[in-house]
């Protein structure tokens, strides 16, 4: 009798929930993509919307940052590490109905690594000598030198497989192979996706997914409180988090990101070309005050350009302890006993704007007068990133495993160290796990001891969601808001 009752209740609940269960989701983010081609722009917002949802690569990142099979079901790597043979999945169709075959993969990778390619991460494909289609379901990649991170590289949003037929209109109408297909983009407002009924893998639980773009923190708070949106990924006002935590309507997911937030320093601009000055800078800054003041406690201090959740992380924060007296002494030794004037150019995110005010005050305490100017993203890219017209700036580097940027002397902070460059070159061709780990640790040490930039904290990503929403990624191992496993609790 008890058993019978339980079954009845259970089925009643089941019935009720199938009738009421929500099958759509509205996810908000702060930044809107400039266009919808992840293979031809650096803007992370493009990947956030499209990665894994609409576009897939040969391999893909899991929620924990692991590299898993994507469109390639399996692969063989030759003894010498120079040939990768990828076996594609069967029955994969693009959203326009055409079949995915090896020629699409060849097209996508050749397009990405071409001389005139607009790909933002061409370095990912640097070691590829040729890409060939062996038969419609097999692709052979030949490398010029062994590359231990090739499978990782192919999982990036910049390496997704696109359809040659749709390439002309990809920036407006992206056609991919993912569990969602693109429906509609209302510029300045939202992007609509809907479930791909012909998906090769586990179909998405949601019928429809909408990405909404809300840049203003106050508006974000209001939209969340009014329940106009179901989730906000990268919620911009950390000061409101305790309020959401106390509210039973919401859940707060605090995740790690690959975002090393640094005080970018122009290594070619005097006086920052002087190691002592850069060292003084690092000692003048109180990281904990920045984390507490700008991020309301969200974030982990870092002492080098490396993510603390990575197994090869070395804690180097002791290298640049907060010590204003030492900073003053170092400045005096460098010939700047009376300090100097410089610029501090800040992009819009609150970690930069608020962190900038705190850093400017801390630098003022040791005699450095950093004049703040607040820039929009476009201006920042123009003046700082491309123009290199800056003394200091604050920015978060959200790409995974990006210590390699320190081997690029033309990168915006202009660090030029031959020893480091050859170390990274060696690392790129090293396949042995232990040796790689050794080299990665050495790399962290070199840039920490050269005080290239002042390393502040690892950015945390707060996601606020309605209580019943399940399956969101907790961490952000890459820029992605993967909705393929997201659904509502019954």
């Amino acid at each position, binding site marked *: 009798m008890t058993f019978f009752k339980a079954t009845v209740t259970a089925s009643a609940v089941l019935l009720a929930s199938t009738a009421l269960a929500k099958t759509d989701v509205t996810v908000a983010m702060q930044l809107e993509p400039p266009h919808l081609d992840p293979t031809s722009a650096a803007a992370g917002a493009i990947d956030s919307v499209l990665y894994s949802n609409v576009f897939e690569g040969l391999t893909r990142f899991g929620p924990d940052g692991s590299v898993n099979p994507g469109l390639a079901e399996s692969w063989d790597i030759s003894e010498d590490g120079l040939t990768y043979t990828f076996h594609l999945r069967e029955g994969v169709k693009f959203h326009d109905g055409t079949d995915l075959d090896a020629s699409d993969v060849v097209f996508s990778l050749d397009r990405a690594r071409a001389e005139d390619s607009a790909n933002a991460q061409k370095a990912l494909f640097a070691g590829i000598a040729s890409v060939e289609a062996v038969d419609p379901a097999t692709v052979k990649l030949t490398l010029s030198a062994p590359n231990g991170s090739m499978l990782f590289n192919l999982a990036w949003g910049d390496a997704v497989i696109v359809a040659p037929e749709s390439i002309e209109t990809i920036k407006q109408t992206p056609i991919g192979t993912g569990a969602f297909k693109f429906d509609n983009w209302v510029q300045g407002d939202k992007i609509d996706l809907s479930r791909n009924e012909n998906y090769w893998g586990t179909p998405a639980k949601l019928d429809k997914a909408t990405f909404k773009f809300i840049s203003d923190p106050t508006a974000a708070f209001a939209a969340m409180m009014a329940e106009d949106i179901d989730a906000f990924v990268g919620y911009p*006002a950390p000061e409101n988090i*305790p*309020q959401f935590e106390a509210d039973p309507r919401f859940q707060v997911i605090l995740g790690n990101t690959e975002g090393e937030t640094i005080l970018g320093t122009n290594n070619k601009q005097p006086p920052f070309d002087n190691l002592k000055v850069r060292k003084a800078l690092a000692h003048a800054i109180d990281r904990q005050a920045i984390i507490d003041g700008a991020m309301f406690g969200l974030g982990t201090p870092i002492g080098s350009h490396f993510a603390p959740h990575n197994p090869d992380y070395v804690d180097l924060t002791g290298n640049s302890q907060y010590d204003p007296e030492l900073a003053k002494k170092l400045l005096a030794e460098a010939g700047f006993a009376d300090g100097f004037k410089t610029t501090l150019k800040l992009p819009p995110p609150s970690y930069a704007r*608020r962190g900038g*005010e705190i850093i400017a005050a*801390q630098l*003022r*305490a040791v005699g450095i007068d950093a004049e703040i100017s607040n820039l929009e993203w476009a201006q920042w890219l123009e003046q700082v990133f491309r123009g290199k017209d800056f003394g200091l700036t604050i920015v978060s580097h959200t790409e995974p495993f990006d210590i390699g940027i320190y081997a690029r002397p033309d990168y915006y902070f202009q660090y030029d160290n031959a020893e480091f460059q050859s170390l990274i070159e060696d690392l790129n061709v090293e396949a042995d796990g232990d040796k790689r780990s050794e080299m990665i640790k050495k790399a962290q040490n070199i840039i920490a001891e050269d005080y290239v930039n002042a390393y502040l904290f690892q950015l945390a990503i707060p996601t606020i969601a309605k209580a019943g929403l399940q399956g969101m990624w907790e961490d952000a191992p890459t820029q992605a808001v993967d909705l393929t496993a997201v659904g509502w609790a019954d």
Partner: protein
Amino acid sequence: MKALLFNRNFAIGLLLTAVFVAGALISFVWTPYDTSGVDIANKLKKPLSDGYLLGTDHFGRDILSMIMVGARTSIAVAFVAVGIGIVIGVPLGLAAAASKGSLMDEIIMRSNDLVFAFPSLVIAILITAIFGPSALNAIIAIGIFNVPVFARLTRGAALSLWQRDYILSARVAGKGPARISFEHILPNVTNLLIVQGTIQFSLGILAEAGLSYVGLGAQPPIPSWGRMLAESQTMISFAPHMALLPGLAIVFTVLGLNLMGDGLRDVFDPRIRREKR
């Protein structure tokens, strides 16, 4: 002067304004706490706690000190902006009145109409967006819109004065239009200019707060009321004092200046004075 002090509006307005001007002046030599540093350990203190009369903001800066220094920014910007309006607008108005009906009159007054036709805050945003945000550009942007206000006012008042007998006698005595304008017309429109000046001054403070609010006024670390409001927005639910206090500072300053302006007009304007009796 005695009549002024007996005017209730003027007295209250003067008192309110004096409080803020005094705060701004004192801030040059002393503030309860330093506003250029941050003190994260003491952030978001409630008013009347731990030695902070008005509490602290999200960086642990004392809000009373911030309001005092912010008053300096607001008053300086509004004062210079009104100055620009008077220095450029009044001579233009006098010239237009002196040459009534001529081509010069037309050019001056139609270009004034042109400036008037634009929404002032939008143009101010445009100017600061082109030349970069700073207190100086805010002054220029607000100042430009004070020019037509004073030019029109001066012209209107001067036109009626030009009909007076004593002006006629001055002309008969051989004085030129420029000399008449400055020796006889200007002194007689001063009252009006003072009244309008206080009103424009309060509008200037509002405009400065508006520009700072959208990030186009004085840049950090210079405290400014508008930016204090903007920064407090997301914290209003748990630190309402951060929004309320600079907001009240703006309200009381503007109210004070407006009451003062009303009082001045009551006393100076003969028509109103007669009605009241």
